């Protein structure tokens, strides 16, 4: 796998713009991905995610802005270090699995004999060993997707872009792919991961880029963003209602506990101390951080309004 690096970003973009006729698909997008980092790209349909990815990979040219990949403009050698699983997936349906993989690997600069060994290894790793002699059209959609995932990784890329990689997969195969992605990160591969599934982003990504109307509206580590949107809610599981507790503006029953909205200026530990002072037996007390989905709806929803 790729050698981990802690210095320069694998890919860096500054001020990207792209329009199709009157439609401004991407506006002033800047981003970077470090080695060993998984960056999640989220956003509504048509928000500019795929266009940005295509510009990063030199599939389409930006109207303005710069892309640097492996510390330079796109070169043939750089192309060979990139693995791309596009949202619009496809393989040569009339061909068998291994010839498909070999051709795509050779296009990435891998010698045929190495490609064959890699194909064998990846097909076994992804549980596709028994399907290697089948034609693509004989495989289920999910298995075909796994073959395409194998084609994305067959040349040991240092930068991997996965556009909706888990759509259409059963939970078992999703788990297999997630494990492989985790292995790639551990090996120092930089990964860009576009999805609508916020739970996948929370599980896998170190950082997110949220797109809306062609712009990046949120950028940062997942933990920081969740903390930023955590606000003033806490959850407490205790044996009495938090009536009259210091700093609690309002409360409501929430499952086996209570959701408390604290008044401005009241720290969560002050509310906790007040509860303890009242003799409440507390089983659990935690900051109620919003899910990424809630943050997404909040950010995108507010822009729609």
């Amino acid at each position, binding site marked *: 796998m790729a050698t981990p690096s802690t210095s320069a970003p694998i890919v860096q973009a500054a001020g990207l713009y792209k329009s199709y006729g009157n439609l401004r698909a991407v506006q002033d997008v800047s981003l970077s991905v470090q080695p060993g980092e998984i960056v999640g790209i989220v956003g509504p349909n048509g928000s500019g995610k795929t266009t940005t990815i*295509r510009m990063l*990979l030199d*599939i*389409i*040219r930006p109207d303005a802005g710069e892309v640097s990949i492996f510390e330079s403009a796109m070169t*043939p050698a750089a*192309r*060979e270090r*990139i693995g*791309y699983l*596009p949202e*619009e*997936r*496809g*393989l*040569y*349906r009339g*061909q068998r699995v291994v010839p498909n993989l070999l*051709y*795509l690997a*050779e*296009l*990435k600069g891998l010698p045929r004999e190495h490609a064959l060994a890699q194909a064998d290894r990846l097909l076994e790793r992804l549980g596709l060993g028994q399907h290697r002699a089948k034609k693509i059209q004989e495989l289920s959609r999910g298995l075909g997707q796994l073959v*395409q995932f194998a*084609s994305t990784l067959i040349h040991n890329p240092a930068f991997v872009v996965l556009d909706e990689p888990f759509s259409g997969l059963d939970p078992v195969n999703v788990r297999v792919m997630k494990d492989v992605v985790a292995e790639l990160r551990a090996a120092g591969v930089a990964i860009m991961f576009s999805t609508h599934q916020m739970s996948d982003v929370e599980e896998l990504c170190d950082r997110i880029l949220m797109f809306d109307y062609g712009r990046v509206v949120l950028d940062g580590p997942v933990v920081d963003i969740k903390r930023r949107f955590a606000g003033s809610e806490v959850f407490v599981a205790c044996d009495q209602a938090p009536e009259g507790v210091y700093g609690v503006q309002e409360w409501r029953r929430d499952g086996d506990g209570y959701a408390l909205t604290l008044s401005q200026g009241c720290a969560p530990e002050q509310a906790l101390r007040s509860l303890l002072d009242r003799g409440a037996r507390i089983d659990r007390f935690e900051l109620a951080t919003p899910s990424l989905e809630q943050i997404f709806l909040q950010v995108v929803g507010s822009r729609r309004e």
Partner: protein
Amino acid sequence: MSKTWLVARHEFSVTVGRLSYRIFAASVPALAVVALIGMVVFRAVASDDDTQPGVSPTSSEPVAVGYVDLTVGPDGRPLFSGHPQQGDTLFTPYADQAAATQDLLAGRIDRLYVFPADYLATGIVTEVRERRAGLRFDSGSGDSALHKFVLANLAAGQVDSALLERIVTPYRIVTLGVSGAGAPADEETDLGEALIFVIAGILYFVSALTASGYLLQSLTEEKESRIMEVLLSSIKPEHLMFGKLIGLGAASLLQMAVWSAAMFGFLMLAPGLISELASELLAVPAPGALLLAFAYFFLGYALVGTLLAAVGAVTTNQRQANNITAVVIVPTMLPLWFLTPMLQNPDGTLARALSFIPITAPVASLARLGLGGMGGLDVAISLSLLSLSVAAAVWLTARLFRSFLLVYDQQLSLGRVVRVLRGR
């Protein structure tokens, strides 16, 4: 190996591996084999019938003809008493028609003619045949031999032997070709060169059509299967286009080679068929003619292939692509529609114009070269314009490739095509 060659190799192997390609490529050899078998069977049947009475053999074997002469000439002797050997045919006189008929039925003679006593007055000669069901094979040899036999005997003694020979065989035509300066020309070389241009024209036309079909199929399949985006993350659109043109052109040429070999084999093996043409095909043509033929073939294919690649890029499915293909293919065929005036005047205005217009130049120029009506200046202008148009087509198609290869499920917009070509 460069990416272009990888694509070319892939396109070649995928196309050649298709069942439809193999069936199409094998069609001409199969037809040649069937035709050969048919000819062999035909000959066997004819040969079998040759052993039967009343059926004449082929001209290459001696023919025995019997005749009964009941005529009386001015000198009191029968009219047909001499000149029994006419080519491969031997005329044997019979005194008795019944005995002659027995020999005919027994197969000892192939034909039997009876010259009646009033022959001089009526000109009637009776041919005696066995009445049989089924086919009857007549060769002209017997009739021709009879004609000469009758002439030789009627004129014998009336004219000297030299004049008699001319009466029997009045003439034999031989041809003499002359060059522009009036000097005798080498007929074999001329024919060989003409054949090269004719063959190049046919090859160009058929391979351009077949390769364009493969190209459109390949591009639209890749668009429909959505593999295009993966390819474009690995290779530049221009390299992808060149690879396809080379690979599919090679597949088409292989098909042409198989067909040519089959036709050549047929000409060589077919008994007595067009042997002169076959020997011309065997003759080594002049290097200049070969070079010209190759130049027109290569540039013509590059132009048509590149334009059809553009069609494949801007269309989103096979049906749409097939509809627009005519825009390229029909102009290519234009010289065929004007073949008659071009044959009549290969150096005329129409022929010259068609050989200068890039899309019609390959067919028109190869036809003119084959007819010997294209001067060096015309060739230079034609090839220059064709080369320039190939370069322009490659440049424009590369732009379309980058802009349209990832356009799926959309109606083709001419306005967008124009905007892309204008760089907007």
